[in-house]
C-alpha cells in the first residue's frame, strides 16, 4: 500500500503543486476588497499560474475562515466540485490543506484542487481580537472561557506562556528570539514585495522594542496585513499532460494535534505540539529528513514558535532551538535558511500560504536575490490554535 500523501511509484500517484498565486499585500489604507474578494483573487492567480481554465478545477479546500466551498464554487464559476473539505487548524490550516489536496488528487477523485486563503488582517477584524462573543473556533472558545476572564485574549498572550517556560527550563536567551526576528527582517530586504522591506533591524533595535506581553516584544510579533495566497494541486501525471513547466512534488504532508487538543497548558509534556507526531510521519513518508532540507519556511506568528517548530521537526533536540537559531544559521548563507521571504514577521501575514508560495518559488529557482542555490528540497510548516501543526516536504520532481 502506498503512503497517504507521499510520492508513490507512478506519476498518477504523486501529488504536486502546479500553480501558486498571491494578491498584493498591504496595510493602510487596506486592500479595498472583502475577505472573500481576496480569497477569490488569490485563487484566480494560482489557477492562471497553473495555465488551466478555472473550470477544470473540481476540488476545493476552503479556508478555515472567511469563505465557504459554495462561495468559492459559485464565484469562480466551477462546473462541478467532486471533492471539498474545510480544515479547522487555525494558521496550520493552509499547509494541512496540502495534505488533503494531495490525498484527493492521488485518489483520482479530484483532478485540480484549489487551496485559497485570504483576509483583511489589517483593515478588518484584527487577529489580536480573539475575544469576540461568537468564538467560531475551539481555540477562541477556550481563550474566551478560561483566559479572557484574566485579561489574556490575544494569541501573543497565550503563546508567550510557552516561550517563557522554554526560556526558563532550557535557558533559551532573548537573543535567540531576536535572531529569528532579525533573520526574517534581513530576508525581507531581498523580497520586492515584503512589507518590511527598507526597514532594517539590528539586535539593539530588537532589544529596545517595547514589551507587548513579556517575554514578547513588539518585534517578536508578526505584522497584521491584508492579502491572500493560493495554490493548485494536481497529480504529476496531470501536470505532465498539461505541460506544467515546473511542478513541485509534495513528497509528504501531515497534520497533527497534541493531546488534549483543546487546551495548550495541560499536556503531560507541555512542549508536545502537533508537529511532534506529524513531523516523523512526514519524514518517513518522504524518505527524506531534516538534513536534506535546503530551506525551511516556518509559520512565524511569533519568534519563539519558530524555535519550537524547528525542534519538533528534528532540526535539533528539544531545548536546543535557541542555540540553533543563533549565529546566522537560519539566515541565507547559513546551514538552514528560514523564511527566505521574510515570513509573517516581515513579509506579510497571508496565514502562511505565502510560505508555501515562497517554497515553490525557491524550488523553481525563481527566488531572485534570495535564491538558495541549488535548492531541490524544502519544508514548510503551519502552526495554529492550541499548537496544531502541519508540514509539507516539497521537492523537485
Amino acid at each position, binding site marked *: 500500500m502506498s503512503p497517504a500523501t507521499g510520492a508513490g511509484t507512478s506519476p498518477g500517484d504523486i501529488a504536486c503543486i502546479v500553480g501558486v498565486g498571491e494578491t498584493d499585500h498591504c496595510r493602510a489604507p487596506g486592500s479595498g476588497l472583502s475577505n472573500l474578494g481576496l480569497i477569490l483573487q488569490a485563487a484566480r492567480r494560482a489557477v492562471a499560474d497553473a495555465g488551466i481554465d478555472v473550470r477544470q478545477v473540481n476540488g476545493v479546500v476552503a479556508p478555515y475562515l472567511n469563505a465557504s466551498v459554495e462561495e468559492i464554487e459559485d464565484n469562480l464559476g466551477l462546473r462541478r466540485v467532486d471533492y471539498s473539505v474545510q480544515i479547522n487548524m487555525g494558521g496550520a490550516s493552509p499547509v494541512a490543506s496540502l495534505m488533503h489536496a494531495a490525498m484527493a488528487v492521488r485518489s483520482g477523485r479530484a483532478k485540480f484542487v484549489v487551496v485559497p486563503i485570504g483576509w483583511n488582517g489589517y483593515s478588518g477584524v484584527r487577529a489580536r481580537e480573539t475575544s469576540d462573543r461568537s468564538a467560531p473556533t475551539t481555540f477562541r472558545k477556550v481563550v474566551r472561557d478560561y483566559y479572557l476572564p*484574566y485579561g489574556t485574549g490575544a494569541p501573543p498572550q497565550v503563546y508567550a506562556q510557552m516561550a517563557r517556560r522554554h526560556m526558563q527550563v532550557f535557558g533559551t536567551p532573548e537573543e535567540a528570539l531576536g535572531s529569528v526576528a532579525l533573520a526574517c527582517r534581513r530576508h525581507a530586504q531581498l523580497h520586492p514585495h515584503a512589507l518590511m522591506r527598507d526597514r532594517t533591524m539590528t539586535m539593539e533595535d530588537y532589544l529596545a522594542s517595547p514589551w507587548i506581553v513579556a517575554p514578547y516584544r513588539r518585534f517578536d510579533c508578526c505584522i497584521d496585513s491584508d492579502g491572500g495566497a493560493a495554490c493548485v494541486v494536481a497529480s504529476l501525471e496531470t501536470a505532465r499532460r498539461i505541460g506544467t513547466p515546473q511542478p513541485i512534488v509534495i513528497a509528504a504532508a501531515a497534520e497533527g494535534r497534541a493531546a488534549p487538543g483543546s487546551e495548550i497548558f495541560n499536556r503531560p509534556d507541555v512542549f508536545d505540539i502537533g508537529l511532534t507526531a506529524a513531523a516523523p510521519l512526514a519524514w518517513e513518508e518522504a524518505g527524506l529528513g531534516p538534513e536534506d532540507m535546503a530551506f525551511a519556511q516556518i509559520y512565524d506568528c511569533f519568534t519563539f514558535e519558530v524555535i519550537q517548530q524547528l525542534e519538533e521537526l528534528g532540526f535539533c533536540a528539544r531545548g536546543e532551538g535557541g542555540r540553533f537559531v543563533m549565529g546566522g544559521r537560519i539566515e541565507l548563507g547559513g546551514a538552514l535558511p528560514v523564511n527566505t521571504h521574510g515570513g509573517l514577521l516581515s513579509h506579510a501575514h497571508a496565514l502562511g500560504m505565502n510560505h508555501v508560495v515562497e517554497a515553490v518559488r525557491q524550488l523553481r529557482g525563481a527566488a531572485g536575490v534570495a535564491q538558495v542555490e541549488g535548492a531541490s528540497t524544502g519544508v514548510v510548516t503551519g502552526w495554529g490554535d492550541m499548537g496544531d501543526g502541519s508540514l509539507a516536504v516539497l521537492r523537485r520532481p
Partner: protein
Amino acid sequence: MTTGQAMPGADNLAEAYFSWHDQGELRLQRCSGCGRWRHPPLVTCPECGSSDLSWQPASGLGTVFSWTVTHYPLVQAFSELLPYVDAVVACEEGPRVFALLLGVDPDTVSLDMPVRVDFADLAGSRRAVFRPM
C-alpha cells in the same frame, strides 16, 4: 462528596467552574470513577469513560508553571491593571489553571514559585487569583 448536580454540557462547563469563584471557592473537576483531577473540565472522563464527574474543593496551593506580563492594552477591560501578570499555576492536585497573579512585582516572579489562591474582583466578577506564599 459530590455537588448533587449533573455536570453541565460542554458549553456551560466554564460557567460552572467560575460559579464556585463567586462563592469564594476554587474547585476542580474530579472523576468519581477513577479519582483523577482534570482541568479544563470535560463531559466524560477520557481515562475511564465515566460521566460521574463532580466539582471537588482544591487546596488552593500551587506553583508557577509559567507566566507572562502584559504591557500593551490587548484586553480593554484590564487596561487599568497594566502591567499585569497572568500565570499558569500547577495546582497541588495536578491540573494547571490559568489565573492572574497579584501582590507581586512582575520582575520577581520565578519558575516554581509557591502560590496560594485568593479571590478578587476582576472586570466585575469575583475570580480566583493567586498570590505568592
